[in-house]
């Protein structure tokens, strides 16, 4: 079982969700984050002065998938989140030792 964690542009969330369900992923968790990277922040105006804001709004997605789904999932995210412009974000993958479905207590891949 693996965790696929991705940081994407906020307005891509629905596309990514659809792409993931398209490859058979049944669930995911998303949250709002602020990103810092190559895509520099922006300037904001406040009473006659400009201020630099370093962070850009991003959405972070976490999807746990069975080992055999991992490539499909990563590809689905990469394709659907891509706009080709700087700041499209990253995908990180890491191992999950175990999973439990709270409602039923099921574990392993069947918990997903």
């Amino acid at each position: 079982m693996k965790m696929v964690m991705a940081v994407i542009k906020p307005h891509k969330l629905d596309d990514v969700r659809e792409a993931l369900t398209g490859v058979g992923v049944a669930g995911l968790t998303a949250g709002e984050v602020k990103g810092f990277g190559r895509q520099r922040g922006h300037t904001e105006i406040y009473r006659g002065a400009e201020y630099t804001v370093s962070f850009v709004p991003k959405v972070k997605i976490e999807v746990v998938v069975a080992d055999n789904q991992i490539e499909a999932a990563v590809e689905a995210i990469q394709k659907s989140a891509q706009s080709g412009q700087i700041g499209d974000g990253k995908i990180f993958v890491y191992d999950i030792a175990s999973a439990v479905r709270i409602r039923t207590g099921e574990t392993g891949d069947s918990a997903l």
Partner: protein
Amino acid sequence: MLRARTIGLGIGALTLFTAAPAMAAEINSGDTAWIIVATALVLFMTLPGLALFYAGLVRAGSVLSVIMQCVMIACIASVLWMVVGYSLAFGDSVGGWIGGLDKMFFEGVGTDSVNGTIPEIVFAMFQMTFAIITPALIVGAYPERMKFSAILVFSAAWLLLVYAPVAHWVWGGGWMAAMGVRDFAGGIVVHATAGVSALMLAKMLGPRKDFPNHLRPPHNPGMTATGAAMLWVGWFGFNGGSQLAADGGAGMAIAVTHISAATAAITWSVIEWVKFGKPSLVGAVTGVIAGLATITPASGFVGPIGALIIGAAAGVICFYLVGLVKNRFKIDDSLDVFAVHGVGGILGTLLLAPLAAVSLGGGGQADGVSMMDQLGVQALCVAIVIVWSLAVSYVIIKVTQGLFGLRVDPEDENTGLDLPSHGERGYEL
């Protein structure tokens, strides 16, 4: 015309009568209706208007502290005004310097006392709302870092030692009124006093930790714009109500007030657009407030064209002053009380002399007074009030500092003041 002109001299002139024994004048229900409503409108300017305007500009962790400061200053100013402030400002004059104690606790201000064509109690309440907003304006100088106890003590002392005397001099039949100074709705009495005192307090208090480089942008510009809109609407009561009658003079006062606000906002936005490639909402509404503050002293004397000129001047000059105070003087007058209100009030006080010209649609100079004479009186009076405000504020701040200390714990400044000073958080979404 006659009536409008006479009253067009503003509160300054009118209240000369107030100090005198009640005239045989009769209460006019239309004038009374308008001034009761104007009183509500000016209260609305502070609560929630000014509170929201300021609260949107600070960080989210201090939003409630700013509102709380406005609420409590309003409450304390109200009680103090009734107890003694009104009497100091509008009681029987002691040699033109200060009102006597004859009207303490609104003594003698019953349902049947009259001031001009309205009940005196209505006049006293209208004035109370001015006594509420003036110290509340100074809140913009010290947000996110000043002790709540020190704020309250400073505000109370300031109301009685700075505001009440100046109100007496200009509006209460004092020596500036006798000199013929013109201040229709408070360029000197309200904006100059508050603005320069704010600068002094900001300087003595020291800047916020992150000033000027790591400042966080306003946490809620929509809240600020909402407050600004309420200030705008309420200002109809502030300036229009200062006519103390529902007539053409009041109508002209709201007209010029509105035009100045709109013009200053456009001016400010154009400067931003040219300078940064886009105009901001906070900029536009700051322009609105600058335009309103600047027209305030002039609103009973100038016409629509004068208002256009005042608005444009307010937009340009207040815009540059904001930068000057921050970057040149390095003073963290955090929400620009001096640059917007102080400078605006002073500017309007001076501009009203030339712009009262009949050729510009103004009401003209007072009988037998030349424009240059009037300008001299205006400049002298505003200069004296600036010195007085700075000096007395300095003393009050020093004493407050000795008694309570001025600044909160640095760790509390990091968190924002809501939790440490008031045990609450602004948003639990």
